[in-house]
C-alpha cells in the first residue's frame, strides 16, 4: 500500500516536471516561427541577401548564390569545429543538422542573381591577368587553374564569381588568422601560401575582377 502510494507520487511528480518543462519550451518558442527549411532559408537570407547575392552589413556577408554545395558544407563544418573562426557563423552553424545543411547548400547552388557590384573598377584588367596567369615571380598560381576560367569553382573549391569585393579582400588579407585553425589537414591550407604571397594591391585587383564575374 505504502509502496504503491510512493510510486503514484513519483509518477505525478515526473509528469508535473515534464508538463512544466514542455510548457516553458512552448512559451519560449511560441512567438517565433520555428519552421523547417523555409524559415531557415529566410534566416540565412536576412544576412546573405534575399537572393543570396551577399550583403554589406557591419561586416561583408558573402554571396552564397551559385556556390558549390561541397564548399558550403565544408565551411559550415569548419565553423562548428572552430577551424574557421567567425563569431557569428559558429553560432549559426552549430544548430544545423546534416540534412538541413545539404538542403540549404542545394538551394543556394541554384540561385543566380547578378553580382552585388560596388568594386573599384581601376584595377580590373590587372586582376584579370593575375586571375588567368598568376604571378610567377611571387609563386602565385593562376586562380583559374582551380577556380575555373569562369570563377564558378568545383566541389570543395569555391565559386568566386560575383563574390563581394570587401569580403574577398578581407579573406585573402587575413587568411592564415581565420582559416585552417589548429590543424594542418584543413583543405583551406592550400590557399595559405598563395594568399601570403600576394600584396594588398594584387589582392584588391583580383577581388575587383572576380566580383564582376557572373
Amino acid at each position, binding site marked *: 500500500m505504502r509502496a504503491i502510494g510512493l510510486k503514484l507520487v513519483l509518477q505525478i511528480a515526473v509528469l508535473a516536471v515534464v508538463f512544466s518543462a514542455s510548457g516553458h519550451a512552448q512559451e*519560449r*518558442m*511560441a*512567438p*517565433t*516561427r*520555428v*519552421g523547417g527549411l523555409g*524559415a*531557415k532559408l*529566410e*534566416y540565412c*537570407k*536576412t*544576412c546573405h541577401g*534575399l537572393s543570396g547575392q551577399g*550583403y*554589406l*552589413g*557591419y*561586416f561583408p*556577408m558573402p554571396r552564397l548564390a551559385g556556390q558549390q554545395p561541397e564548399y558550403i558544407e565544408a565551411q559550415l563544418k569548419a565553423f562548428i569545429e572552430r577551424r574557421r573562426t567567425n*563569431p*557569428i557563423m559558429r*553560432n*549559426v552553424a*552549430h*544548430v544545423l543538422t546534416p540534412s538541413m545543411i545539404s538542403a540549404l547548400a542545394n538551394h543556394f547552388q541554384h540561385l543566380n542573381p547578378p553580382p552585388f557590384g560596388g568594386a573599384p573598377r581601376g584595377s580590373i584588367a590587372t586582376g584579370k591577368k593575375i586571375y588567368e596567369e598568376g604571378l610567377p615571380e611571387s609563386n602565385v598560381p593562376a586562380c583559374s587553374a582551380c577556380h575555373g576560367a569562369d570563377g564558378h569553382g568545383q566541389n570543395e573549391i569555391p565559386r568566386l564569381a560575383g563574390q563581394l569585393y570587401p569580403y574577398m579582400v578581407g579573406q585573402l588579407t587575413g587568411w592564415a588568422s581565420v582559416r585552417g585553425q589548429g590543424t594542418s589537414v584543413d583543405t583551406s591550407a592550400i590557399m595559405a601560401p598563395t594568399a601570403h604571397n600576394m600584396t594588398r594591391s594584387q589582392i584588391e585587383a583580383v577581388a575587383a575582377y572576380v566580383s564582376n564575374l557572373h
Partner: protein
Amino acid sequence: MHEARKLGVMGRIGLKTAVLAIFAFALSTFPGSAGESAAVRNCTWCHGTGAQGYTVAPRLAGQRPAYVMSQLRSFHDHTRDNPFSRQYMWGAVASLSPYTARDLANYFASIPPRPANDGNSVLAARGRTIYMDGIPEANIVSCYACHGPNAEGIRDIPRLGGLAYFYIKARLEQWGEGYHSTPGSPMPMVATHLGPEEVEALASYLSFVR
C-alpha cells in the same frame, strides 16, 4: 523734402543690406551652431533641443548621416509608413531639399550622442546575448552582424546604441506588424521572428549602450 526722400532711400538700402547680412550670417554659421537655423529648430522641436531624442521622436545626435538621409527620403517617398511617420514626418520633409537634408544629417551626426539608459537593466544581459549571437534555433539573426560590435552602425545602417527603449521597442513591433521602412531593408523579416520578450530584452540592452 528732398533730404527726407534721400534719407528714405538710404534707409531702404540699409535695411536690404542688413537683411542680406543676416541671411549671409545664417548661411555661414549653418549648420555649425546648434539650434541657430530654422531647419535645425524645426527638427529639435520634437527631437529634443540637444537632438538627444524626446519621447517618441528618436535621438538624432550621433546618428549615421547616410541613414538620416535615407530615412528623410523614405518619409518623402512615403515608404516609411508607421503611424508617427505618417502623422509628423511625411509633412515635415515634404518641402525639404536634398541639400538641406544632407546638411541636417551631417549636423546631427556631429553632435555627441548620450545613451537614454531607460531600459530594464535586469533584461540587459539577455538583450546583449541576443544582440551578439541571435537565437539560431529560433531563426533570430545576430544584430551585431549588421549594426556592429558596439551598435554604432555603419553607412546607412543606423547606430542603435543608446536609443530610447520605447523607440526601439516600437520600431521592432511595427516591423513585426507589417509596417515598412526603407525599400530592401531586411528589418521586417528580422522582426517577424522576435517575440515580446526578445524585443524588450534588446530594447533594454541597447538603451544602455554608449
